[in-house]
């Protein structure tokens, strides 16, 4: 019989035909292998979506050059109460270091069933000193208007034009912003609106000192605290300390999530290794027969790789569907204080995961292939 060279597609089609036949003949064992690998995939996808949420957090936090003044001995800034005099005093102590100062009204409130931070600041400070970035809509330009953080909008399903009830009053959402501090769970209104809403009896909670670009924030802070007019009743903090700590902890969480993601996928290597190794042990006779009738090691190895690929693709598909249902239909969210993490199954993490899963599966086969070379044709001659 003359050998006509089959196309690559034909060769692949033949290989996968026999792979699927082989897996079907294995019956329950193939199914259990797929399910166990799918569990690993679900673990990866959930961790990857968590890591994605942390990426958004770390992306948003920028370092500013501001100092914050609050009443001394307060744990929650909401308990602080300041007047304009303290800002005047701070500027008198370090006139060349402070560019300007402004008040911030600060509250923790339950809005739409979620605890959020509400800040009332002068409008001109929103994009400048506070480094808020308007990503949709417009800044508040009328009464009872707010801009909200991305995360708060996602969690509460707010969009431009939504009505939000804050402290008994309805506000219109005019814009979505990306912020320097808490990326999630924050709303900003103008200082005037804050005074109307909360009254002026408790003054404002935080004084923000915007330093000149050449100032050393720590030096200015120490100078202020050295003056009894400040140190007696107030505490002064570097705003970027919070931001740096926040960034660092998010980065640490991101790194940890990344490592956990890799470890979870590495489990696929061992899953495939075990499945392949068991298959080789049970089929040493059949593999020996194939060697006797002329199958080279390369073709047998190719068959094992194809088998691993089919198992991995089936497991990944099943795992992806389960993860999709869990993440999207359950709308799972994690919450750390006011930081809401929205788990999202992105195309990026899905395809990266698929690629890594296939690579780790092939690694599992490669680790077993040493045994394949040791399976003597004599096994097939008995």
């Amino acid at each position, binding site marked *: *019989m003359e*050998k006509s060279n089959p196309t690559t597609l034909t*060769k692949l089609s033949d290989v996968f035909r026999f792979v699927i036949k082989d897996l079907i003949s*294995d019956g329950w064992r193939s199914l259990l292998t797929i399910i166990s690998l799918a569990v690993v995939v679900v673990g990866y996808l959930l961790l990857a979506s968590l890591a994605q949420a942390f990426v958004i957090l770390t992306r948003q936090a920028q370092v500013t050059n501001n100092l914050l003044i609050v009443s001394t001995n307060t744990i929650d800034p909401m308990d602080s109460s300041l007047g304009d005099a303290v800002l005047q005093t701070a500027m008198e102590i370090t006139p060349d270091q402070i560019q300007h100062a402004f008040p911030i009204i600060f509250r923790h409130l339950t809005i739409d069933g979620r605890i959020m931070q509400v800040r009332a600041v002068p409008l001109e400070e929103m994009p400048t000193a506070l480094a808020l970035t308007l990503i949709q809509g417009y800044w508040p330009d009328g009464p009872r208007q707010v801009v909200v953080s991305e995360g708060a909008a996602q969690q509460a399903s707010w969009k431009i034009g939504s009505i939000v009830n804050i402290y008994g009053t309805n506000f219109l959402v005019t814009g979505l912003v990306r912020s320097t501090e808490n990326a999630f769970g924050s709303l900003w209104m103008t200082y005037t609106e804050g005074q109307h809403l909360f009254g002026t009896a408790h003054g404002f909670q935080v004084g923000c000192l915007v330093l000149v670009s050449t100032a050393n924030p720590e030096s200015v802070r120490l100078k202020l605290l050295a003056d009894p007019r400040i140190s007696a009743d107030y505490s002064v903090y570097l705003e970027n300390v919070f931001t740096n700590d926040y960034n660092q902890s998010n980065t640490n969480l991101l790194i940890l999530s990344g490592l956990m993601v890799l470890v979870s996928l590495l489990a696929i290597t061992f899953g495939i290794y075990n499945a392949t190794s068991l298959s080789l042990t049970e089929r040493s006779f059949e593999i020996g027969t194939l060697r*006797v*009738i*002329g199958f080279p090691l390369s073709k047998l190895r190719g068959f094992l790789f194809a088998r691993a690929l089919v198992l991995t693709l089936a497991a990944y598909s099943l795992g992806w569907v389960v993860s999709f249902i869990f993440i999207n239909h359950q709308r799972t969210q994690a919450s750390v204080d006011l930081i809401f993490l929205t788990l999202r199954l992105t195309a990026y993490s899905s395809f990266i995961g698929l690629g890594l899963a296939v690579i780790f599966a092939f690694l599992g086969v490669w680790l077993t292939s040493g045994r394949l070379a040791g399976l003597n*044709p*004599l096994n097939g*001659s008995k």
Partner: protein
Amino acid sequence: MISIHQLYKTYHRGSESVEAVSGIDLEIIKGEFMVILGPSGGGKSTLLNLIGGIDHPTAGTITMNGFALETASEESLTRFRRDHIGFVFQFYNLLSSLNAIENVSMPLMAKGIAFKQAKAKAVQILTRIGLEKRLHHRPSELSGGEQQRVAIARSIISEPELILADEPTGDLDSLNAQAIIALMHELNKQMGLTFVVATHNLRLAENADRVVELRDGKIQPNHIDKTK
């Protein structure tokens, strides 16, 4: 066709050495039906494995059509078997998850031929040997005789020059055994295939061109040669 000279095969098991094949000289002629007769443990299977390139001799030479099997690499031997030798085993050695057509197609697929082409030839051969109604049956759905027919079909599909059969009737009842013997002789005569059959079944030796008796790894002097 095959020239065997001073062939030895020694197995070491711990401190013991067993000489399974001891100083064999043998010539196998193209187209002949040779039977290697002997009791269990006499070295028949070992000799067949050495001729088939499945095992390596301890000493001596085996040359088939100019190809030296004793010095060839594992992959060279695999290619050589694929292209020149067919095998029939006592327990059929069929792949349990594949049907008759797929089992018979294997040697052609090992050569890189597409399954569609291989299948066509497999159907042809299976039909020729009377298994047209068993094409899509798996080994578990076939009788012993039918399984051995499938195994014989597999051994000849790639048109080898030599068929090595190790106790091909060892697992069959007398009726099936006769049928298999008849089939092998028919293929020998019609296709000119060289058969080397290892067996302790005297009936297989009856119509052989040459009978070589192997005992304790050595060829006995009283062999029968009908070619002369």
